[in-house]
């Protein structure tokens, strides 16, 4: 079911997903005529690359737009704008990357870039095409209790997906496949005929992962998969995810508000604040050489389970502003201890501070922070 060339073990990883300037604006309607009076800019222009077989972590507080971004990438909600280039052959991906980083593009280059992007851009696909592409991209939701049909047993809950995408499968085929999936995720035959309410949170989340694997995907959006679980169960699920990733060469977009979980599981991390990526880099870069004041503040707010660190948390002032009416300039300036005039007026660009470590803060733009 998988395209050739995507499986083999290769030293150099290629991008599986390129997201460019993705935006999702929700209209605010008011009055009898439901006139649009403004927009909630939930995702306001994010760009990043996700490489094959890696885990790309996204952290942020509630309202930062991380879930909306995950749903937009799968086009489960329709993005307002942007490009989502998914699963192009690696030569194409490399060519796109090369053209994008080129300083000056000739007209021919521009045309070529556009043509390449157009061919693999999910935004350009119609409903039917999207349906077949979705076999390769799946999602696991935060709340396992509400993400299954309560009137169907687990066999049907998972089987219905197989039946939808492969109507030719017989009932027996589906039985076998569902059992295989459940077993892969640490469940057993006895869970097959059980209903969602008869399973614990951890078991349900295992079943959610089994369901996501049903169509042999390459890419899975994990939207806070362990937030509703206890620590001991969370550890089991994180272990399972990593095992499956190794076995099936899966690529994860891991969304979470929990920094320690993201640190543990991710290869690269994007920190989001009010719809923008404020810092992006490898896990080491983001955790050990963090640059953005917001990332620092987040780190300082985590209570570590180490009694030697008692009293070390430093609360950040204020709350996340409403995305309905975000502050001008850098959206973080209202809570930032280093804010200067420039921060209140202009939004900072995402600049490279070394080795692909990107930060959106005027402090790191030469000559701007005065």
């Amino acid at each position, binding site marked *: 079911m998988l395209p050739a060339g995507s499986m083999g073990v290769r030293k150099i990883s290629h991008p599986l997903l390129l997201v460019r300037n993705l935006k999702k604006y929700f209209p605010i309607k008011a009055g009898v005529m439901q006139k649009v009076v403004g927009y909630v800019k939930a995702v306001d222009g994010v760009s990043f690359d996700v490489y094959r077989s890696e885990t790309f972590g996204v952290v942020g*507080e*509630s309202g930062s737009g991380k879930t909306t971004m995950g749903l937009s990438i799968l086009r489960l909600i329709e993005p307002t704008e942007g490009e989502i280039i998914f699963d192009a052959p690696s030569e194409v991906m490399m060519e796109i990357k090369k053209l994008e980083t080129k300083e000056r593009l000739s007209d021919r280059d521009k045309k070529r870039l556009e043509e390449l992007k157009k061919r693999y851009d999910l935004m350009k696909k119609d409903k039917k095409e999207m349906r077949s592409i979705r076999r390769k991209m799946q999602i696991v939701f935060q709340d396992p209790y509400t993400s299954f049909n309560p009137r169907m047993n687990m066999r049907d809950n998972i089987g219905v997906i197989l039946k939808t995408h492969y109507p030719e499968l017989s009932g027996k085929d589906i039985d076998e496949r569902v059992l295989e999936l459940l077993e892969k995720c640490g469940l057993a035959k006895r869970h097959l005929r059980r209903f969602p309410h008869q399973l*614990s949170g*951890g*078991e349900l989340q295992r079943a959610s992962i089994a369901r996501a694997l049903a169509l042999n995907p390459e890419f899975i959006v994990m939207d806070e998969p362990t937030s509703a679980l*206890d*620590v*001991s*169960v*969370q*550890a*089991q699920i*994180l*272990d399972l995810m*990593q*095992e499956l990733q190794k076995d099936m060469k899966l690529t994860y977009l891991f969304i979470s*508000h929990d*920094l*320690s*979980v993201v*640190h*543990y*599981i991710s290869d690269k991390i994007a920190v989001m604040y009010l719809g923008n990526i404020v810092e992006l880099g490898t*896990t080491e870069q983001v*955790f050990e050489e963090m640059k953005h004041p917001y990332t620092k*503040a*987040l780190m*300082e*707010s*985590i*209570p*570590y*389970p*180490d*009694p*030697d*660190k*008692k*009293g*070390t*948390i*430093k*609360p*950040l002032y*204020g*709350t*996340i502003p409403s995305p309905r009416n975000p502050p001008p300039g850098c959206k973080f300036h209202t809570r930032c201890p280093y804010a200067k005039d420039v921060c209140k007026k202009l939004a900072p660009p995402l600049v490279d501070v070394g080795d692909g470590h990107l930060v959106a803060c005027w402090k790191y733009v030469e000559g701007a922070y005065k």
Partner: protein
Amino acid sequence: MEDVILSVENLTVDFYTYEGVLHVLDDVNFKIKRGEIFGLVGESGCGKSVTSRLIMGLVANNANIRSGRILFNGKDVLKMSESELNRIRGKEISMIFQNPIGSLNPVFKVKDQMINVIMNHQEVDKDTALDKALKLLKLVNMPDPERVLESYPFELSGGMAQRVMIAMAISSKPKLLIADEPTTALDVTIQAQILKLIKELQEKLGMSVLFITHDLGVVAQLCDRIGVMYAGSVVAYGSTYNILKNPKHPYTMGLMGAIPRPEHKGKPLPSIKGSVPNYLDPPKGCRFHPRCQYAMEICKKEKPRMVKVGENHYVACWLHGGEED
């Protein structure tokens, strides 16, 4: 025993349900001293919230208290009449909850709810109560308190609503504040603010705090002493530092190990196998034995006693001989 404000002794409670009798609390013991923050930690369903409700005298109709007592200031809460309970509830013991917005009445302004609470416990007129409400909001570092007084709960953020709840809870200067997962629904940055606030208020007002949470990080930051609960029993008890630094009970060890940390990166996380037992038919002996990697024969038969394993550190586990408390 003057320094003890609350003492929970041998508390064993069953609940009658259509499915059968749930044996929830199994001999729970702990003491909270005056002016300390005591943490009750455990995973969901371990009985920590049930315990806190019993302390408030909130006993469900289907509960059967098989044994034990809860001494608050030397008097047994479980034996108090409803009118006696009403005198201490909200006045001497008050409580804040996990979902602050849901804990406020959605159809009244913050002002009205606060005045109501204040006038209930103190003999003041409405203007004085309003004045007090404003002072309380300032005490909890509420940004823009005048506006908040005129707001409805849905206009507040989670962090602001929790500050309102805290302001109401401390309005009559309680001796004991029960905080049931007060920061679980909040973002980390807001959680840090609320934790700092609770610590400040506890010092300023000299009250005791019973802090209930599942988050060992929060406990490490805030609490002087803790009790770790598993399946309706306290399995480890004593100073936070000793328990977390040098865990002795296999469950506490497992919990500490299961927290993702940078040094685990790239390696599988050590997790506790299995899941929490069903209260309809809890395991005999030590309730943790089916998940415990060190389980011995005796663990399946007899419930272990609390033994001292170090300075201010007690565990209920057969692995440790120790001296009995």
